[in-house]
């Protein structure tokens, strides 16, 4: 029981790591990014390329992948999302869905449909014992990363001038403009951060499991559920949402593995019914 809860919390950290970028983009720009999972998969592929090209271990690949992902996110915002966001409620969903399909097809042509994975070396396969529980280093690192990322994002938003601008813009972009805030760069940065965190999460998923050009869909579903369960647009809520997902899954698995994933979806559905999403 305790084991299940601890494992669930760790798994939840991974969900939260994927979800935080989605949550951020929604919270600030009201952007529902259907391609978020696919962008995470792209991050994993980039890390794979960095590893193959320069022989860089995944951690070093970060140095390369994160800035690149940030740039891609900013560029997407300036070229694609910005226009979509002006086009009404449905446009961003359709546009990012299109992006998702494009990414999947590009990945299939560029990298084939074979499942790939990142090699994390001995660290990724090792575990440690704590109070009679065996925990995986990798998952623990994933959870810690999620907490650090969410914590830094929180500090960035709460304590810095950039964060103030972001919050002001998220509240009321027109009023922010009127106070002199250049909204485009703010949104571009937020999209950049969102995609960078997606890429980071993608790398963790690549270390834990395999990915292929179509993995993004499943990643998106869990991230989306974490965001909704945690309350839309709230970062700590997203972490809580991820943990709730992970723990639910583990506890239900204790009883019957068959219903573990189903339970998560049912929980999500229940939350939607009790607390419908308002835009």
């Amino acid at each position: 029981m305790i084991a299940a809860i601890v494992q669930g919390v760790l798994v939840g950290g991974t969900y939260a790591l994927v979800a935080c970028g989605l949550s951020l983009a929604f919270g600030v720009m009201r952007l529902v990014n259907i391609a978020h999972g696919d962008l995470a998969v792209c991050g994993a592929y980039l890390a794979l390329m960095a590893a193959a090209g320069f022989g860089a271990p995944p951690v070093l690949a970060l140095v390369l992948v994160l800035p690149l992902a940030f740039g891609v996110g900013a560029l997407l915002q300036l070229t694609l999302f910005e226009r979509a966001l002006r086009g009404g409620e449905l446009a961003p969903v359709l546009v990012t869905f299109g992006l998702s399909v494009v990414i999947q097809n590009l990945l299939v042509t560029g990298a084939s449909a074979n499942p790939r994975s990142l090699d994390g070396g001995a660290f990724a396969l090792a575990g440690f014992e704590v109070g009679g529980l065996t925990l995986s280093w990798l998952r623990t690192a994933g959870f810690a990363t999620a907490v650090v990322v969410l914590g830094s994002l929180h500090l960035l938003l709460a304590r810095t001038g950039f964060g103030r601008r972001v919050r002001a813009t998220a509240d009321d972009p027109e009023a922010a403009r009127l106070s002199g805030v250049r909204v485009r760069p703010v949104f571009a940065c937020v999209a950049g951060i969102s995609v960078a965190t997606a890429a980071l999460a993608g790398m963790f998923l690549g270390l834990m499991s395999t990915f292929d050009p179509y993995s993004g869909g499943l990643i998106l579903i869990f991230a989306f559920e974490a965001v909704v369960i945690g309350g839309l647009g709230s970062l700590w809520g997203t972490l809580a949402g991820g943990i709730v997902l992970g723990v639910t899954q583990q506890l239900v698995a204790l009883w019957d593995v068959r219903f573990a994933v189903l339970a998560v979806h049912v929980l999500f559905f229940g939350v939607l019914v009790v607390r419908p999403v308002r835009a």
Partner: protein
Amino acid sequence: MLELDRISKRFGRVTVAEELSLSVRHGDAVGVVGPNGAGKTSLFGMISGDLAPDAGEVRFDGRRVTALDASVRCRLGIGRTYQVPRPFTGLSVFENVLVAAQQGAGTRGRASYALAAEVLAGTGLADLAGRPAGRLGLLQRKRLELARALATRPRLLLLDEVAGGLTDPEVAELVALITAARARDGLAVIWIEHVVRALTATVDRLICLAGGRVVGDGRPLEVLATPAVREVFLGTEASADALTEVERDA
């Protein structure tokens, strides 16, 4: 400093500006009156950059700003308050003003904190600096709206019904604030107000808008006396009362 050159704007069948031209000079204090839906707020939108005119041109300091983003116009020196206050509800009162001081006035670091504090003191919000802006009452919100606009260090200030919905003493307080700001910074003001009395006490020029056109422009009492303006005003009972009040004052 501000010139509107034959600007036009329609929303479907509604015309909010029709070949409207207007110019305002440094230090001017211009009042704007007109019935509901006359296009007063829309006019501010086109000056501040929230709203793009269908035709015509907006110039500020001789420079065409029609295509410029609202944030750029703000940095050039156009400040504006909203008719219905729109504070950043997730930020504290201080942060609301600080964003304007840093982004609009271009101050950094300590200078920006000093400016924000100064504006808050000037608008009587100093005690509320730490409170989330979402938890302010109407008068305080209107003050914050004014404070945020002032913190951008504008040279032209657009005030949209800052007195609406306030009690007489509250209006008097706000008027005093604005007069003080004008005296100190020498800024030009365009002020939309239904409470004509508050206006006539402050402005030296009055414009009356109706159906997207200027139907009167000149010294306040003279404008109010023109038949065209009277006709527009007598259409609504409340405005008619206001008119008689002003005349009685005079």
